């Protein structure tokens, strides 16, 4: 005979004494809040954790300093938004995954190691609510770091640009802050997808060492492995040239790079071959994000 789930409830078990009835009344006063409220509680907890962890603050400062340095040294600040984007794209392909993993790889693992996941299991909060709350809370911290850093770079372009800029990219070849804003949004989406992967890792592992090891593996796969697989697929004939622009969406890094080229760089340049499918790339990033959160939820249900 297998164990009966705890949800089995005897609704007729109402042989309570007066004391028990009074106790029940006090309990009914403390009903569980709605799922959105419960998620808010988890988000708040994560936000406080992020804001009180000096490592994250230092990481954010270092990240901003590196981006400003690259933009300044590369000459992008003086040349305009799109040259700055071109300068930053490759460094961001490396730095954003590292920062995202730093924000997420211990998010759930820490609670598991302290036994707080067991404790939380006795509260009316579903694993999916917990995962979503952790993701949103950490995402706010991560986006604060990434977006604020990029806005600082954008501000530097405003101050340091040698020629006046056009506000709207109304014609090919125009530089525009709107293109930079688009770049910031795409970078944020890329960061969120990697954060989701990191949170999945933190839910899957039981120790800090294995979390670090798996994070390194994930970074290698995301930064190198999937691109190499695409190159191999193209070289060996598994992928046709026409399908490559769609296949790039399989890798979050390639999807991000393709989106930046398609919707920012080529838009500004006004011409060039199609480098990626924007729709497929956006779907790719969404699948990585949602799929990773689903994996994290499944791992919590183990």
């Amino acid at each position, binding site marked *: 005979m*297998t164990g009966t789930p705890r949800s089995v409830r005897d609704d007729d078990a109402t042989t309570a004494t007066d004391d028990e009835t009074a106790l029940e009344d006090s309990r009914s006063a*403390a009903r569980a809040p709605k799922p959105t409220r419960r998620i808010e509680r988890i988000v708040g907890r994560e936000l406080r954790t992020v804001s009180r962890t000096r490592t994250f603050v230092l990481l954010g400062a270092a990240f901003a300093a590196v981006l400003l340095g690259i933009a300044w040294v590369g000459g992008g600040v003086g040349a305009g938004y799109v040259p700055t984007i071109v300068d930053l794209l490759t460094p961001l392909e490396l730095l954003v995954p590292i920062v995202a993993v730093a924000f997420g790889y211990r998010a759930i693992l820490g609670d598991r190691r302290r036994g707080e996941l067991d404790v939380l299991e006795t509260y009316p909060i579903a694993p999916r609510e917990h995962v979503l709350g952790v993701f949103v809370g950490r995402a706010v911290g991560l986006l604060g770091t990434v977006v604020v850093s990029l806005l600082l770079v954008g501000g530097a372009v405003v101050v340091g640009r040698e020629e006046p800029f056009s506000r709207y990219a109304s014609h090919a070849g125009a530089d525009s802050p709107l293109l930079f804003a688009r770049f910031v949004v795409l970078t944020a989406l890329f960061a969120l997808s990697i954060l989701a992967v990191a949170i999945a890792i933190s839910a899957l592992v039981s120790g800090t060492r294995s979390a670090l090891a798996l994070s390194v593996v994930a970074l290698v796969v995301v930064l190198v492995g999937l691109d190499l697989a695409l190159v191999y697929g193209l070289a060996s004939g598994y992928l046709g040239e026409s399908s490559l622009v769609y296949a790039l969406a399989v890798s979050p890094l390639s999807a991000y790079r393709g989106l930046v080229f398609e919707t920012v760089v080529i838009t500004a340049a006004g011409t060039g071959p199609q480098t990626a499918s924007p729709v497929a790339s956006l779907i790719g990033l969404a699948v990585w994000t949602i799929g990773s959160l689903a994996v994290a939820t499944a791992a919590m249900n183990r």
Partner: protein
Amino acid sequence: MTTDPPLLEASNVEFAYGDVTILRDVSVPVRSGAVTALIGPNGTGKTTLLRTLAGLQEPTGGSVVYHGPAAAREIGYLPQHPEFRPGFTVLETLAFYASLVGGGRDEAKAQLERVGLEDAATRRVEALSGGMTRLVGIAQATIGDPPLVALDEPASGLDPGMSKHVFTVADELAAAGTAVVVSSHDLELVERTADQVVVLDDGTVVERGVPAALCDRLGVESLEDVYEASITGDLSRVRVQGETA
């Protein structure tokens, strides 16, 4: 009390990790308004049974059925080694847990006062001693007034005065109608507090009953004597489940 149906009923529970059997044919009724104590040597399955009763792991055989009232939180749980997320004060930590069952800082404060730790409300959890952390854990276990509270060695690491206080808290919870399950090695306090004692040995229940009745049945003076009379094998050696020495 004993004529009411139990709040939680474990029937013929089995639990195994792969080939290693931890619990065998364990049946334990847990009643409202009573303290049920699990005692037994180290490694005999007390924590596994407590976690199974708390719904934290599914038994591989048998059943655990909750007959209690609907509540925002049906079971409160104190782990054997409670720890809390660093960077938060004691009050913030408990307020977070209280918020999950619709409570707030007032409930958190009330639970802190119950365990006598209100003076540490603004202290960071990582700055607490082991004993104080355990008291915060007990306060956490009672958040939301769950009908059943499972405490895994609540007095471990506490000085004699605090140990006594913890069992007094358990007694008060039971007096208010809560079903309390504790595992403990402090047999004197268990004898003084528990309404029901379950003696586990090698993953099975070897004795169960009211402490005084157990003493009468075995013709001994104290619960410690019951323990020694019930446990087979060398009491100075830790039994490792699944290992044959």
